[in-house]
């Protein structure tokens, strides 16, 4: 009887909830719809003066309007519009019309007629312009409706002759956005007077107002963007605009010329005042190059940027951009670059320059000198020397793009790029170093160029140095002197900035493996070996010595004769480094010695397949073994997990997959173990202790599933389903455990309901994937859903329990590419015995430097956690600018964390310290202590869940699952030794 009663209560309760929800929704609709327009109407009628009306309109514009009520509002606005005499109010109404017609879900074709109507009687130019703007909004909302577009274009053409530039501007904008694309087709069909939109717009290139000219060019560009092919005739018109008086016109004209040159690169244009003809793209290139020395820097930036994307230009023209004929007193002079090259080729490199060294040579024919080069001459020389760094950066970027597509140009622009390494603005220097890296496979550095490049290694900016290391990693050096020079400079760099250690070692690793033959003759010198005498053994911990060894060992990898030159201690050091710095020192085949890693032969490639196979096989074995007895299953799982983990350590390529699968199996193992517990049959009071294990397992599974979901990049929807399914099982387990351990039924109601909501949510989110989950826990659960909804908690728990035990083990499909996110804190190193001293009460900045691998969107997810000795944790959000992206999948976090002494000398700390109060003051004498720093990966579960349309539709989705936020630690914690000093009084 009691059970029956409870059931009824439960039923009623659920019903009530649903009704409430419906009611709320209905109410909402009823309330909002009429209120908006009606209120507006009342307000506007109340308004006694234009200023009042304007105020009401402004207030009204602050709140959004629902799609259903837009039309009503518009009608009221229009009604008021006709009555209104004040232009400012009409202007506001017109602007509201435009805003309203942009409302999503509202189709503005019904208000178009009215808008066009009021346009015809409008006298004020400003209002007219605003109305045209509204029409533009309407037109862009209805891109499919050809008739409306035609009509709007007609209206625009009619008002093009207006005397106000604002109106003409808007008309041109309308034409640009709505001008029909398939002109001939629609004209034939409708029999309207054909309008050549391009010609109409083109006529306004010579408008008297510069703003209108700009608008006309922009409209033309808009047409192009919408896919209309511009006529070639526009090219000549645009060229004339290049000498316009106004910078915005010139800037837009440069763009237009660029567009046309991309459309008709191969057509031929005549050169004025001569009989010759050249390709259009070359001509345009020359013209844009000329704009690099324009008077306005906005135009210069624009021109320099566009140059980069003109790849079809002929190499002859391209190379001219770096050409500047020097002369002095009418005599030809060589540039410093040419002289450097000559000096280098004559073998006289680095001789000091003498007075008169740059003395001009041959006489120049005065007639032949052209001071204003038509064409591309020296465009980049000018751009790279520009006053504004924006122009210089744009020029460097353009150089980069052009050099990537033309190896010969890359070789030529090298000198100029190297020069940019000494720019006064760091951004420019950095940009040019990056550029050089990007084109590095096309170039080989000459020694004198290398010299200049290496000089920058002493730069005090860490970014610059690291960018330079990256550059050196992929640079081709031509001579052994070059390698030596690079090594010497890098060691100098190391001595000056010891923090660059890792970056330098890495750089030398690549330098060595790229140039084995160049390193070979340097080996005796570098190792300071002597043919007869034994030399002293260098210090193994010296970073500089390690750097040299990294270079040599990496070169030795592909140069089998090299190890013969090593002395005994070198081999010992090799063994040591191979173990301690295995990522920098490759496996070598050493003659006459027990091969350190005999397994690794030079051809590693075939080895990958077996390990892949092994992975597949072991996983398949697990998936097929689900029906064995629990004991066997457990063991097998344990073995497989161990295998996978080891495999991940051995094979870095498979680490992601192996870890991912191992984690999944671990979850399954935990689940099986938990279910194996005998607690299920024992009475509640007895298994209290044992239940710890089950609830801990549930908790751990939850954690692991979050890790699986958020710590791996490349996880697809298939996997997400399985992960969520696993989590659901964990939740079920948790529910069962709680049900068993808690006395009384009341708390269970809530829990059961929550769980069922989650099941419901799971179903809704992954409805598409449900067919794949046959026979699984959730599949069975959903079958029983109606029954569960009406059951009381105890019954639910019972059902869940049986289902958990019966559920099969789901096969986890392996994703294509999966990588585990990882982070390594490089700085602080955590080995220092010297405490970081600072005055208590003030903050100290701790430099944190970490590399992040395979983290998606690190700016928003990566946090720094500081754990103080008293257990307080502080979470720090690094600035987005602190993240750098040196390569795909890799990020670098360089930030500062502020520690403060008061942050942990809370009560507990003070109490502990209380005994050690100094005699002279009330300040505690503070002892050094350790602070832990680690990186966290923050996640938000709603981010991953696929959005189904009806969730957006406003239906109330369960609050439980949508936004669980949490963090996963993903780096080893590093201890920092700090010592606050008492403040001086």
């Amino acid at each position, binding site marked *: 009887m009691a059970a029956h009663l409870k059931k009824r209560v439960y039923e009623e309760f659920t019903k009530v909830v649903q009704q409430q929800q419906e009611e709320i929704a209905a109410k909402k609709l009823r309330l909002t719809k009429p209120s908006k327009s009606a209120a507006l109407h009342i307000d506007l009628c109340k308004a006694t003066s234009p200023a009042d009306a304007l105020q009401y309109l402004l207030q009204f514009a602050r709140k959004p309007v629902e799609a259903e009520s837009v039309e009503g509002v518009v009608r009221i606005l229009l009604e008021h519009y006709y009555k209104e005499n004040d232009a400012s109010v009409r202007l506001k109404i017109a602007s509201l019309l435009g805003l309203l017609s942009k409302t999503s879900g509202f189709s503005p074709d019904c208000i178009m007629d009215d808008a066009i109507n009021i346009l015809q009687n409008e006298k004020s130019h400003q209002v007219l312009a605003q109305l045209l703007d509204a029409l533009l909004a309407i037109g862009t909302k209805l891109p499919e409706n050809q008739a409306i577009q035609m009509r709007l274009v007609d209206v625009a053409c009619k008002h093009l002759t207006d005397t106000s530039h604002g109106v003409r501007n808007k008309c041109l904008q309308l034409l640009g956005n709505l001008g029909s694309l398939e002109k001939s087709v629609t004209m034939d069909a409708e029999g309207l007077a054909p309008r050549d939109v391009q010609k109409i717009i083109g006529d306004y290139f010579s408008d008297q107002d510069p703003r209108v000219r700009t608008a006309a060019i922009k409209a033309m560009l808009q047409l192009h963007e919408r896919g209309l092919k511009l006529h070639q005739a526009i090219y000549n018109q645009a060229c004339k605009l290049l000498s316009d008086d106004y910078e915005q016109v010139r800037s837009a004209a440069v763009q237009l010329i660029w567009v046309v040159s991309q459309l008709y690169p191969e057509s031929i244009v005549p050169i004025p005042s001569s009989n010759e003809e050249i390709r259009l793209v070359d001509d345009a290139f020359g013209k844009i190059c000329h704009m690099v020395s324009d008077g306005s820097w906005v135009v210069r930036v624009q021109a320099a940027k566009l140059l980069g994307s003109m790849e079809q230009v002929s190499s002859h023209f391209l190379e001219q951009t770096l050409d*500047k004929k020097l002369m002095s007193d009418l005599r030809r002079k060589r540039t410093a670059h040419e002289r450097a090259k000559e000096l280098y080729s004559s073998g006289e490199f680095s001789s000091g320059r003498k007075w008169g060294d740059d003395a001009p040579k041959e006489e120049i024919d005065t007639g032949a000198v052209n001071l204003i080069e038509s064409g591309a001459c020296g465009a980049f020389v000018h751009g790279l020397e520009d006053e504004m760094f924006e122009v210089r950066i744009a020029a460097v970027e353009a150089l980069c793009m052009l050099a990537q597509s033309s190896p010969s140009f890359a070789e030529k622009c090298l000198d100029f790029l190297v020069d940019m390494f000494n720019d006064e603005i760091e951004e420019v220097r950095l940009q040019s170093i990056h550029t050089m890296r990007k084109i590095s496979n096309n170039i080989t550095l000459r020694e004198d160029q290398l010299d200049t490049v290496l000089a920058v290694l*002493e730069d005090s900016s860490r970014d610059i140095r690291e960018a330079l290391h990256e550059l050196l990693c992929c640079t081709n050096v031509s001579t052994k002197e070059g390698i030596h020079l690079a090594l010497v400079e890098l060691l100098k760099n190391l001595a000056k900035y010891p923090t660059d250690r890792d970056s330098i070692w890495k750089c030398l690793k690549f330098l060595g493996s790229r140039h084995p033959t160049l390193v070979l003759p340097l080996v005796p010198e570098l190792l300071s070996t002597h043919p007869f005498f034994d030399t002293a053994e260098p210090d193994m911990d010296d970073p500089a010595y390690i750097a040299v060894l990294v270079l040599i060992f990496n070169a030795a990898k592909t140069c089998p004769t090299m190890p013969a030159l090593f002395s005994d201690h070198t081999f010992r050091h090799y063994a040591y480094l191979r173990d301690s710095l295995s990522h920098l020192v490759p496996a070598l085949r050493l003659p006459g010695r027990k091969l350190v890693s005999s397994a690794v032969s030079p051809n590693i490639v075939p080895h990958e397949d077996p390990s892949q196979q092994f992975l597949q096989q072991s996983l398949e074995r697990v998936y097929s073994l689900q029906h064995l007895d629990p004991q066997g299953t457990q063991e097998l799982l344990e073995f497989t997990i161990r295998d996978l983990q080891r495999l991940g350590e051995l094979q870095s390529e498979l680490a992601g997959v192996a870890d991912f699968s191992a984690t999944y199996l671990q979850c399954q193992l935990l689940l099986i173990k938990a279910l194996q517990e005998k607690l299920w049959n024992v009475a509640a009071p007895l298994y209290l202790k044992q239940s710890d294990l089950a609830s801990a397992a549930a908790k751990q599974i939850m954690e692991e599933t979050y890790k699986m979901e958020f710590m791996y990049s490349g996880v697809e929807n298939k996997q997400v389903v399985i992960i969520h399914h696993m989590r659901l099982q964990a939740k079920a387990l948790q529910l069962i455990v709680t049900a068993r351990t808690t006395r009384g039924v009341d708390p269970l109601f809530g829990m059961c309901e929550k769980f069922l909501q989650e099941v419901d949510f799971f179903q809704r989110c992954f409805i598409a994937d449900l067919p794949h989950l046959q026979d699984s826990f959730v599949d069975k659960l959903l079958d029983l859903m109606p029954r569960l909804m009406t059951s009381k908690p105890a019954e639910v728990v019972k059902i869940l329990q049986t289902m958990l035990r019966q559920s099969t083990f789901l096969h986890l499909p392996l994703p294509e590419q999966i990588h585990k996110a990882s982070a390594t804190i490089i700085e602080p190193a955590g080995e220092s015995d010297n405490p970081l001293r600072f005055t208590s009460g003030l903050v100290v900045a701790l430099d944190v430097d970490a590399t992040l691998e395979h983290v998606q969107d690190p700016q928003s997810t990566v946090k720094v956690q500081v754990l103080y000795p008293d257990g307080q944790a502080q979470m720090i959000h690094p600035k987005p600018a602190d993240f750098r992206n040196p390569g795909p999948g890799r990020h670098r976090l360089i930030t500062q964390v502020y520690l403060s002494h008061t942050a942990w000398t809370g009560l507990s700390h003070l109490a502990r310290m209380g005994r050690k109060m100094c005699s002279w003051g009330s300040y505690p004498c503070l002892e050094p202590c350790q602070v832990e720093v680690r990186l966290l990966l923050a996640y938000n579960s709603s981010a991953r869940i696929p959005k189904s349309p009806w969730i957006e539709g406003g239906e109330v989705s369960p609050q439980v699952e949508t936004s669980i936020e949490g963090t996963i630690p993903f780096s080893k914690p590093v201890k920092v030794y700090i010592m606050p000093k008492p403040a001086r009084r």
Partner: protein
Amino acid sequence: AATLTPTPRAGAGQDVGRSCILVSVAGKNVMLDCGMHMGFNDDRRFPDFSYITQNGRLTDFLDCVIISHFHLDHCGALPYFSEMVGYDGPIYMTPPTQAICPILLEDYRKIAVDKKGEANFFTSQMIKDCMKKVVAVHLHQTVQVDDELEIKAYYAGHVLGAAMFQIKVGSESVVYTGDYNMTPDRHLGAAWIDRCRPNLLITESTYATTIRDSKRCRERDFLKKVHETVERGGKVLIPVFALGRAQELCILLETFWERMNLKAPIYFSTGLTEKANHYYKLFITWTNQKIRKTFVQRNMFEFKHIKAFDRAFADNPGPMVVFATPGMLHAGQSLQIFRKWAGNEKNMVIMPGYCVQGTVGHKILSGQRKLEMEGRQVLEVKMQVEYMSFSAHADAKGIMQLIGQAEPEHVLLVHGEAKKMEFLKQKIEQEFRVNCYMPANGETVTLPTSPSIPVGISLGLLKREMAQGMLPDAKRPRLLQGTLIMKDSNFRLVSSEQALKELGLAEHQLRFTCRVHLHDARKEQETVMRVYSHLKSILKDHCVQHLPDGSVTVESILIQAAAHSEDPGTKVLLVSWTYQDEELGSYLTSLLKKGLPQAPS
């Protein structure tokens, strides 16, 4: 019409030094720069001001004086001119020039009077009095000198505060560039001018025949040399003149030291530099982009690494860099230091500019290794000698670029050598198709200008014209009929009716009549009919009528026919039209003169 008459006054013409140019624009006389010649110690060092007005006061003749920048060859004669010759009118210069100019003048005076003991030189008080007459002009500020004359300053980038000036009277304008630099350097930006289309551009042409290499190579070389020397423990001596280039080099070294974390000390020999540096710190807005943008964090002229030099420092061990004056190593501190350091091959001297023949600087640059000093000492030069040219004048390309930016009608070259200017002149004429002049000292060039005269048009007339035809088309000229009224030097275009009304005149009718002889044996009536049908067929869009009195009208043109008194076979057609219908009337006569088509009968 108005004329422009620029006259290079005893200097500036085809010469470097003593810049002084007199320009008359539409009756206004302006003197541009007032420089002195460093090479002379007698009267020739100042321009010959008696040339301007043979008799009479300068103040009455000159409307204003404009100084482009603080170099002595552009402002050195100013106190002499204003206080000793006597000029009380306004002197215009930019604020940095106004601040630094007196320091340099005072320094110059000290050397001339105190060291060389010259008499008849201006005094400190005269410099002060002279500076009181100065009016500051800010960049792009338009200053009305009087009702008609206005001047405007543009950035020139030659030294701190250097400016180009536009002088405008009515619709006529002249731009004077002073010295300028089109490539930015470490502390100054590039010269810039808007497209002001002056009637005349007066530009310097120091480097008329030179196209320079990129600045970066020079800078890099310089820094590399200094760096290498300092690294191997050597000392670097850089002889400089106190202002201008010295600051650029300081900034260059300062930022390099900062970037490369270098520790070796840099010294600057004191003197007027400290005062000048102070002004460089103040006038941040006149420097380049980098310094302007970063000065909120740190003023680049507050040097961290550069300290004041003391005589005793020269003997300190270890590396150092010293900037010392003067620049040509002919005297003073730079020579003293040079003598101390010359014997060590680790050391280096870098000459950042040109050296006059006869100075120590010139000798060592030309490779001399043994120098005879006073007292028969022989100094052996073991230290390295380097030459680095840092110059802040526009090269030929830069000059062309500026002309392209300003689009002048005429160009006048000054401040350069005649032979080089000839080349540039030819290039300018060839490439811009503008006239180019290069007057010698004392020579006057007179340029005719075609001033544009604004004419007011009455709204009624304009509207009537608008109503008649299509909208005005920018590409095509339109014919418009009206009456031009010139009254009190202002012009108006009004309709003829209004003109008549205003002037109180009666309207006169002007009628043209013309007789056309036609060979036609038929009767007059028939001839008229034939004429009528002929015209009707040709002039389709005109109103052709046959009146009952036997005449034909086309619009307001009347055609009557009469038999010839002597020859009955010939008819005389009388065509008569008013002045307003001149076009149609003459067309009709020419049409009728061709005769009538043969009648079908």
